[in-house]
Each structure stands twice: as structure tokens, then as C-alpha cells.
């Protein structure tokens, strides 16, 4: 193992900002900011559809505001294999719904409220993610 590209400060500050969003959503609307749940409810349920849509739109506006501040392009590097991207998207969609959460729902909100279920889920998807990268490799 070799440690590279490590940016603990910006990661920590970004994390604090994400935490503030989670707090606002929780004390304001009384809900946990799990993105897969919000996105799934947006397509699957008529209840609060506009609210869920607005959260999703907000997620897209966030980076746009950031780019105005830094006046630079936001780095985005991904595989150019569309079949792999579609495969990954399907697995993330099915997996987060069957497992009841993603990085935000289980990894942040779940661990934050000391849910053992979320701790187990988070360890599971990080481990399977590490094994997948071990086999497929990075970009």
C-alpha cells in the first residue's frame, strides 16, 4: 500500500458542510438525508414528490455555486466504458434499495445515530468496493 493524493483538510471541511446539510434537513423536515432514499421516493412515491425533487435539484446546484467561487473546472475523471457505467448504475440502484441505504443514508446518518445495521451495511459496501477495485482496478 502507498498513500497518494491525500487531501485530509478539504475532505474534512467538505464533510462538515455535508454534516450541516444533514442537520438542516433533519431539524427542519425531520428526515434523514439519505440520497438513494430521496431519489427513489422521487420516482416511486407521490408523497412529497416536489420536496424530493428540490433536494435533487439542490445537489446539482451545489457544484455550480462552488465553481463560481473557485472560478475553475471541477475535476471529474471516470472510465470511458459505457457498459461498465450502466452495469455499475444498475447495481447501485438495486443494491441501495435492497440494502436500504447508500453512503449518505447508512455511512453518515446511520453511523451518526449509532445504528448497528448501518455500521454493518457501511463495512459491507466498503469491503466489497475494495475487492471490486482489486479485481477491476481504478481508471
Amino acid at each position, binding site marked *: 500500500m502507498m*498513500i497518494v493524493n*491525500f487531501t*485530509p483538510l*478539504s*475532505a*474534512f471541511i*467538505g*464533510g462538515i458542510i455535508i454534516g450541516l*446539510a*444533514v442537520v438542516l434537513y*433533519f*431539524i*427542519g*423536515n*425531520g428526515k434523514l438525508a439519505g440520497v438513494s432514499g430521496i431519489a427513489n421516493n422521487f*420516482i*416511486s412515491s407521490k408523497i412529497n414528490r*416536489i420536496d424530493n425533487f428540490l*433536494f435533487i435539484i*439542490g445537489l*446539482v*446546484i*451545489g*457544484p*455550480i*455555486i462552488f465553481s463560481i467561487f473557485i472560478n475553475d473546472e*471541477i*475535476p*471529474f475523471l471516470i*472510465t470511458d466504458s459505457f457498459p*461498465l*457505467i*450502466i*452495469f*455499475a*448504475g*444498475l447495481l*447501485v440502484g*438495486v*443494491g*441501495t*434499495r*435492497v*440494502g*436500504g441505504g*447508500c*453512503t449518505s443514508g447508512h455511512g453518515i446518518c446511520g*453511523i*451518526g445515530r449509532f445504528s*448497528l*445495521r448501518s455500521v*454493518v*451495511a457501511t463495512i459491507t*459496501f466498503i469491503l*466489497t*468496493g475494495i*475487492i*471490486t*477495485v482489486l479485481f477491476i482496478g481504478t*481508471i
Partner: protein
Amino acid sequence: MNKLISLVSGIIFGFGLTVSSMTNPAKVLGFLDLFGHWDPSLIFVMIGAIIVSSPFFFLSKSKRKPLFAQSFSIPEAKKIDTKLIFGSSLFGIGWGSVGLCPGPAISSLALLNNYSLAFIVSMFLGFLLAKIFN
């Protein structure tokens, strides 16, 4: 008011993801590349978010109410079952394949690229497919 809270929370969340570079799939894959060129940054994102939010989750255990809702909605499931492990494993494989999970995938739509769009469309298709398992 709920609508404004949803929008503003989404904006702050997306902003935080960008500050921490989690919108970059290469950065996320770096975290999962434990046995190669490891980038531990993602752990710091999670720690930062958990430190800030954790104290507030315990409000729901007292008799307090949210500012603009009747009650807190907290998932009741406590069981650690095969569905949890199976689903989280599928998610981990998808996440490790390209480096995108739901939040960063949606935020990266701001960068107007076809890769994010293809991922999002398949992810929503996956949500619908999951109804077979559930």
C-alpha cells in the same frame, strides 16, 4: 417551508461533496484502492459529517419536534439480515466499478457529461428493478 429546506439542504450537501472532491470518481476509487495507491480522504469526509450531525440525531429521542414537520421519521428496521448484506454488497460492487454513488452521481450532473447521465438513468432503473427483490 419544507420545500425551501429540501432545496437548501440539497445545495449545501452538493457544495460539500464538491469541496471534498467526492464528485470526482477517480478520488473515490482512490479510497477503495486500499492495496494499491490508497487515498484515505473519504474517511475524513465521513468523520466530518458524522461529528457535526450526530449530536442532533439524539434530539429525536427526546420529546422535541422538527421545526417544520409533525414528527421525526426514523427508519424502524433494526434487523441485520441477508437483504441488508446482499443489497450492500451489490451496491459496493457497483460503487467500486466506476467510483460513483447516488449523491456524487447526481451532483456531477452539474458538469454536463454523458457518463453521469448514463449512470443516473441506470441507477433509477435499478431502483425500479429492486421492487422485485423487495
